[in-house]
């Protein structure tokens, strides 16, 4: 059963699908990249691939912050966590992500003080309530979460809370897209733009994709109908020979973004010269670091950070999958050496990673069909 069957707007969805079939040129193969991991998850969950004509391929992009975090950064964070009096605070998503010597959860089992928080503001309150300890918040995420970390640091400074720091691993979405477009084996025709990142950055930062790269991009919502409408908008642009930024998700995403959130980011963070993305290598100006004016709250300055570099396993082909050159199942390790239970590569780590999503919905479905033919 397709999950789409559960939808009250099945008739509207049917219409959108019909229109997509009408607009798609049968002589052409389309490759659309959805940048955001939330979209990847929704595409598999709702079985959208089964609704689209076979010549429209959805390629899964780099927009899963847990997936693109290199293992060395996890090792660095955990190295700080083992220092005396340090409390390692992170979102629940981080807890099972493997470092070289185990995940944060495994470090907790070995005695490190590892805590789940659901908000950076709660990590700060943890510090406030425990003046004898140092709380280090492992910050991760794209522009959706960076403003919350920034505002938390602004509050820490205003209140003079000095037993708190942030290990900043925030990345920015635009350089990730640029790296994909710059890659010589890139074969993407158009983009589905991220929904929630765009509530912060707005739609303007995508304009170069349309203007310079001549690729259409549509910022999209997460409902099946949203994504189908976005695919339709991309097809219309391609048919008309256009390349522009469109906003399908107007009901949530303002064209100009969230100014207060951007201001908080600019107050606290500046661009790093370069940062490593797992599976993609070093990308220039693709991540944030804490500004000098907040140095006291920067874990990388307060602690001696080992600066561990762990090379991605050679056999894993995460980079090719990220760029859309390979499908998850075409990677040599997929499903045997690399599974959601024992991830080797980045994209198997989080449920929003394309390999994990593919494995959980497509691969398991196939296995079930083999086990019990209908």
């Amino acid at each position: 059963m397709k999950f789409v069957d559960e939808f009250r707007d099945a008739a509207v969805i049917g219409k959108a699908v019909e229109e997509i079939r009408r607009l798609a040129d049968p002589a052409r193969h389309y490759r659309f990249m959805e940048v955001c991991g939330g979209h990847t998850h929704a595409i598999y969950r709702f079985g959208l691939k089964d609704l689209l004509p076979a010549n429209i391929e959805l390629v899964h992009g780099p927009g899963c912050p847990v997936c693109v975090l290199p293992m060395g950064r996890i090792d660095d964070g955990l190295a700080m966590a083992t220092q005396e009096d340090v409390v390692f605070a992170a979102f629940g998503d981080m807890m099972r992500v493997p470092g070289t010597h185990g995940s944060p959860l495994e470090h907790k089992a070995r005695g490190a003080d590892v805590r789940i928080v659901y908000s950076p503001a709660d990590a700060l309150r943890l510090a406030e309530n425990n003046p004898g300890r140092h709380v280090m918040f492992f910050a991760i995420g794209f522009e959706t979460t960076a403003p919350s970390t920034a505002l938390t640091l602004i509050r820490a400074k205003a209140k003079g809370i000095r037993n708190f720091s942030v290990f900043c691993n925030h990345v920015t979405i635009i350089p990730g897209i640029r790296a994909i477009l710059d890659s010589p084996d890139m074969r993407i025709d158009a983009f589905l733009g991220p929904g929630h990142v765009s509530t912060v950055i707005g739609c303007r930062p995508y304009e170069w994709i349309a203007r310079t790269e001549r690729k259409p991009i549509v910022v999209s919502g997460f409902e099946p109908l949203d994504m189908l409408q976005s695919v339709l908008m991309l097809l219309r642009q391609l048919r008309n020979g256009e390349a522009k930024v469109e906003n399908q998700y107007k009901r949530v995403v303002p064209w100009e973004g969230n100014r207060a959130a951007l201001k908080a980011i600019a107050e606290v963070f500046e661009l790093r010269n370069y940062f490593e993305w797992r599976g993609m290598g070093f990308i220039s100006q693709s991540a944030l670091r804490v500004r000098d004016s907040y140095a006291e709250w920067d874990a990388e300055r307060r602690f001696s950070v080992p600066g561990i570099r762990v090379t991605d396993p050679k056999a894993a082909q995460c980079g090719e999958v990220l760029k859309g050159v390979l499908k998850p199942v075409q990677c040599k390790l997929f499903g045997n050496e690399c599974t959601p239970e024992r991830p080797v590569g980045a994209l198997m780590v989080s449920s929003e990673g394309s390999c994990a999503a593919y494995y959980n919905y497509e691969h398991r479905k196939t296995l079930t069909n083999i086990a019990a033919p209908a």
Partner: protein
Amino acid sequence: MCLAIPAKVVELLPDRAVVDVVGVRRSIETGLLLDDPPRVGDWVLVHVGFAMSKISEAEALDQIRILTLLGEGDSARVEAEGYGAIPEVESP
């Protein structure tokens, strides 16, 4: 972390608001909505304990439905219940 959870504002506090979020009352940060502060009765989208944008009631109800359909309803509840829950720290 990547969830966007709709919440209804029930009380305004300095820099914060008490919201009704998937059936629980929690206090969240409103400092990122300085340009367009929410009022009691407004709906907001919440990320990691911070209100990120104001949305209509219809959109909020749609978002709640989509979370359920995505199989994220339980994660959203766990996350919402976690806001403001400061984990206990044992003395070293």
